[in-house]
């Protein structure tokens, strides 16, 4: 595979995997929390939260990317706050991960929310009468029963992060080795004379990774569903 892909292409594949994995891992706790709040919570501002979570799905990606650029540039309101702490997103691979995480967030939350809604509140009440605190009820009853949906959300988010283009290129540009992920690399190769070969190879890799993720998610959720239901 290394021989088959040129070093630049290989670099883009590795970077895409790193960016997507980081995006999913870092946004998973917040995603779970949002899904749980939307599924079980009754609080003022619930509709606002719902809208906020879904916004990246509806906004043009370039708008999301531009907003991130404004917020996280060195002089931006959040960028200037984080600068002294040594945390920087602008034109870094971490920025690509942030953009991917935000764009993938609605796809992550939705299946998780549906899975939490499907857990019988009666089972949670039963666990509470048996002495389980809210946290223990969540860890031992709610989460295990919702696990197929949680896994589906995480894999969907990973696939979306692998394909994120608009917000990424707007926010962190297209720097080889730092922010050039598979989609932006394909775009760059297509701008170059004689780059079609490299672009096509990356297209093949994209298709293989997407299919792999899909099959893995199917297999995993079927396995978990069997374990939970049987």
């Amino acid at each position, binding site marked *: 595979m290394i021989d088959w892909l040129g070093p630049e292409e290989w670099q883009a594949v590795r970077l895409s995997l790193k960016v997507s994995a980081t995006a999913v891992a870092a946004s998973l706790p917040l995603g779970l929390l949002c899904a749980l709040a939307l599924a079980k919570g009754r609080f003022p501002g619930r509709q606002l939260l719902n809208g906020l979570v879904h916004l990246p799905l509806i906004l043009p990606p370039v708008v999301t990317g531009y907003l991130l650029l404004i917020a996280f540039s060195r002089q931006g309101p959040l960028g200037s706050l984080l600068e002294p702490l040594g945390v920087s997103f602008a034109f870094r691979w971490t920025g690509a991960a942030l953009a991917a995480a935000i764009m993938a967030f609605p796809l992550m939350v939705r299946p998780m929310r549906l899975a939490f809604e499907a857990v*019988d509140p*009666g*089972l949670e*009440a*039963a*666990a*509470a*009468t*048996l*002495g*389980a*605190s*809210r946290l223990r009820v969540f860890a*031992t*009853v709610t989460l*295990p*029963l919702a696990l197929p949906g949680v896994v589906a959300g995480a894999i969907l988010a990973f696939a979306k992060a692998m394909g994120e283009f608009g917000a990424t290129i707007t926010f962190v540009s297209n720097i080889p080795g730092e922010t050039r992920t598979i989609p932006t690399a394909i775009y760059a190769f297509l701008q170059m004379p004689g780059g079609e070969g490299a672009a096509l190879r990356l297209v093949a890799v994209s298709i293989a990774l997407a299919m792999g993720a899909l099959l893995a998610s199917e297999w995993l959720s079927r396995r978990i569903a069997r*374990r*939970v*239901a*049987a």
Partner: protein
Amino acid sequence: MIAIHVKKRLGAFDLDAEFEALPGVTALFGRSGSGKTSVINAVAGLLRPDAGRIEIDGAVLYDRAARVDVPVHRRRVGYVFQDARLFPHMSVEKNLAYGGRHDRDRVIAMLGLEGLLERRPAALSGGERQRVAIGRALMSDPRILLMDEPLSALDAARKAEILPWLERLRDEAGLPILYVSHAASEVARLATTVVVMEAGRVLRAGAVAEVLSDPAAVGMIGAQEAGAVVRARIAGLDRIDGLTELALSGGRIVLPGRLGGIGTHLRLRISAQDVILAREKPQGLSALNILPAEVTALDEGPEGVAVGLLCGSDRLLARVTRRSARALRLEPGQGVWAIVKASAVAPDDVGGAV
């Protein structure tokens, strides 16, 4: 000692129930929608009352005036739900241990769960599921057991399988039990105290023998369901004819089947519609059970007249038509003969001793 007062407004439904109960099984009895389940949900902390006070054996779980509201998971109530609510992703063993391992071996032995431990809830029958649910509640070391129609989802055969377990629980575990039911036969068989509820109010509360034999309570319980509970001792067995002779305080009656060993004490429900009254001692009758009794009270309802009887020290209940009541000139203090049809006492109505 259990003292419960729960006030709660749920839409158009207004719950305001207050009662006290002695140790043993307290049956909350009434039609669906009378507020029975809301009361035990309030005891469990699953329903927050608008006002009231809930005290179980000295522990105050809720007191609006004193601003006490113990969270569900610290109340130590064992709740057996109508639909068992076992965790589907855990084995029976894990389900049992979820709330603790109190008295594990004894609970497993008492409920006969040894052979089920490795199984998943999906592989259990309805009756097995309820037994596991009861075991799970007991192993959490509760201060009270709450049971919400634990038998209503089961067919007659499964009910007959579970009832003896519940009787053992009552007699061996020494734990107060609040038992929601709309079946008079279950109440008669298990309860020490009965609380009759209707439309969110307590109509009547008292000892089971007293409430179920009170003619005035027939209207609340339902004419078909009404019947007194008596204690009996097995005095003899007729192996040839397959009969059991029972000694009541006021005489002897004979029932079909072998109900236990000689000397065993039983609790017997005698349905009001299976008791026939006569002024003279009947002769040449196929029914074997003729008991002398005294009329203690009469209550006229839309479906007939409920007659309270004292037979020895036992209270019985009979139901007759208005015309019969006139013809027999029934009035309190009058002596009559009560005829109990031998086949009328269903096996379901015969319970272990109290």
